[in-house]
């Protein structure tokens, strides 16, 4: 009365691989469609220089979106990435301007990012508040701290040596792109190969089951927010390296782009689901779109329209290629 399951034994595995690739394939198709459309409409869109531009312009959002993806997988959301970046930027920048050695300043920036993430994580995991509201509150709080710390003024005159760290290039790619690629690789390994990655998926997928299985729920969530804070700080370092200045209002609305990239890439805001590859593709979709619309000289109102419609279209493509959920 038992062995009926025999013949289904191999099926689920094939199905799993199939669905796995389908997932990111949906996003990839979205990207290819968008690239093809712009390639056809914009001369020079496929120039090597422009493709590098797209990567470079996507790199900061990709960096944030990777952290966001981990938080989203854990069942949370981090609206405070922009202000976290701003706070860590102005603090490290003012250290740099005061002559503190680069490594120390950079490490301090990361420490600030981690601390911001820690606070978010503790409020979510230990106090049990809703992630959306916690990070909405810290969104204002961190921004205010950055403004108060600087009196609202930009921190100017970052040392050239510091800037060159982030402005170099490697194998013909801007260093920022290389750094984010490395971060993506690490995130991919974390998610696919480490216990922490499993914990994230488990906590976001079924928190009670994860607890009963002995997964350290609070630590997992807090770590996700801290990574998000850390990557926000890294994005801030890349940016102030490029800009040569740190502003307290830096990172305005970054959270929306990062969430959009993660969602286009297949992360579910219900938790338990998300893909590093997908998120990177999502960030490049958004970057390519901005770049292409600019090169086409589309007026800003229509760019806004296109942004909205492309987010919807990407989700639709995704939905069609991937199935519900």
């Amino acid at each position, binding site marked *: *009365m*038992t*062995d*009926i*399951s*025999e013949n*289904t*034994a*191999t*099926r*689920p*595995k094939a*199905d*799993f691989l199939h669905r796995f690739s389908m997932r990111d394939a949906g996003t990839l198709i979205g990207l290819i469609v968008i690239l093809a459309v712009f390639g056809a409409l914009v001369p020079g869109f496929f120039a090597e220089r422009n493709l590098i531009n797209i990567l470079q312009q996507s790199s900061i959002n990709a960096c944030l979106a990777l952290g966001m993806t981990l938080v989203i997988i854990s069942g949370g959301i981090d609206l405070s990435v922009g202000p976290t970046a701003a706070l860590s930027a102005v603090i490290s920048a003012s250290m740099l301007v005061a002559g503190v050695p680069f490594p120390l300043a950079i490490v301090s920036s990361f420490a600030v990012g981690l601390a911001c993430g820690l606070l978010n994580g503790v409020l979510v995991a230990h106090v049990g508040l809703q992630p959306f509201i916690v990070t909405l509150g810290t969104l204002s709080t961190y921004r205010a701290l950055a403004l108060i710390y600087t009196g609202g003024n930009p921190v100017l005159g970052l040392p050239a040596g510091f800037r060159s760290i982030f402005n170099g290039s490697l194998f013909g790619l801007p260093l920022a792109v290389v750094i984010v690629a490395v971060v993506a690789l690490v995130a991919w*390994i974390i998610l696919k*190969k*480490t*216990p922490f*990655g*499993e914990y994230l*998926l*488990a906590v976001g*997928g*079924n928190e*009670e*089951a*994860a*607890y*009963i*299985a*002995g*997964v*350290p729920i609070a630590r997992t969530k807090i770590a996700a927010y801290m990574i998000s804070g850390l990557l926000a700080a890294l994005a801030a370092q890349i940016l102030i390296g490029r800009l040569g200045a740190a502003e307290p209002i830096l990172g305005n609305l970054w959270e929306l782009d990062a969430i959009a990239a993660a969602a286009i890439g297949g992360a579910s805001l219900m938790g*338990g*689901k998300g893909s590093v590859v997908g998120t990177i593709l999502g960030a490049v979709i958004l970057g390519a779109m901005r770049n292409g619309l600019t090169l086409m000289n589309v007026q800003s109102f229509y760019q806004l329209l296109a942004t909205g419609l492309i987010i919807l279209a990407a989700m639709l493509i995704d939905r069609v290629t991937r199935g519900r959920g």
Partner: protein
Amino acid sequence: MSPRLQFAGISKLFPAVRALDDVSFSVGAGEIHGLLGENGAGKSTLLRILSGVYRPTAGSVLIDGQPVTLNNPVAARAAGVAMIHQELQQVPRLSVAQNMFLGHPLTRGGIFVARGEQERRAAEALAALDPSIDPAAPLGSLKVAQRQIVEIARALLDRARIVAMDEPTSSLTPSEFERLAEVIVGLARDGVAVVYVSHKLDEVFGICKRATIMRDGGVVDSVDLAQVSEKSVVAMMVGRELAQEQHRSHATGDVRLSVRGLASATKVHDVSLNLNRGEVLGIAGLVGSGRTELLRLLAGTDRASSGTIEIDGKAVRFSGPRDAIAAGIGLVPEERKREGIVPLRSITSNMALASMGVFAPRGVIDHRRLKRVAAEKMKRVNLRPFLLDRPIRLFSGGNQQKAIIGRWLAAGTRILLFDEPTRGIDVGAKAEIYHLIEELAAEGHSVVVVSSELPEVIRLADRVLVMRDGTVAAELDRASLSEQAIAAHAIPQTQMQVGKTGPQARQ
């Protein structure tokens, strides 16, 4: 020598509920100890204390005579306790092996998850129970029964000193229980103390030497099962004698539901059946034979790809459950928690959900009428405790089930479809639900009961359809009804051979 496991004066208070009251008993090494009691008696709460999910309000747990602090699941695991939870505690998106090793993954160098090694060890643990389960498959692709087996196999991985099993067979068929029984006996032979909770008394009598019976959070008695009858155990659980009721038929000759050539895109092929007024039609079959899917087609929750449905001679088409409900059909689903209840809402709200049109004829809910009907229907199904405004999630499974039955009574449903109506429900409540189904039939309702428990089908059904591979393999009337007859039709001929020579050939 001190017993392997001892509960000493355990009490547990929840807000407004005393779930456990001074529970003490012990289980020796190598003993398989049954834990019996009605829904809400406190069995799961006790085991959750043992596995570190809850902390006792008073009392302590001793292992090998030493008091242990079980503050969380990790501590319990470290103390040598493995637990199979009543509710499946799994992450559908992770693989079978990842679920089995969740919380304590095998690693390479302490950094990377050793997937291959995990899958190999998982396959070993699964081999004794169901070797067909692929450890690399995502858990979500498995059927409920297979998921339950994975849950059992997970507990075996730990090589624990104490294994607690909270209704491990609620989704399993008798033959799967047979294999589990072998595994449990093996554990006991190795000196493991096993605590076994089940509402299926024959299982408990089959493998346990002793059992503790609980009622209302306290221990009634710990008994040697060889010395007591099933009947007296039931009496201890329920606190009174349960009359053994016999099947009675109320079927009439009027065909109410007539199905011809019904098929779904996936699992159901060419099903035809008739259902009469006052009739209870049983549907039996193996797991995966398509029973649930057939009910879902009839209830309009899935779309049929071909075939016709007639009610009282009129052809109907369902584009969703609303149409089926309007036609007088209601489904009491298999997975109560996922498909049945809205957990935060009250009993009354859950009951009224399918009949809002009745309670709000002019767009605004007539709460007085709603209250009256809720009181009436819930009295009818004997809801306990009788608290109509309390969120349904705080009720026991049996009482949740009663509220869902009440939902269809309130909606004036004439055709009731039950999918595994007594899964996870205690003997007392089970008898009540059987009684209720018979009363409904007597009143002229037509009832379909899908069940994997053959005694249940035989107890209730006027007529039984046996399904195999998505189609009706046989129709048995009461005269020809027996467990053997059903099994003979349910099992495909080729597999019968395998079945006979398989590891489960105990008995």
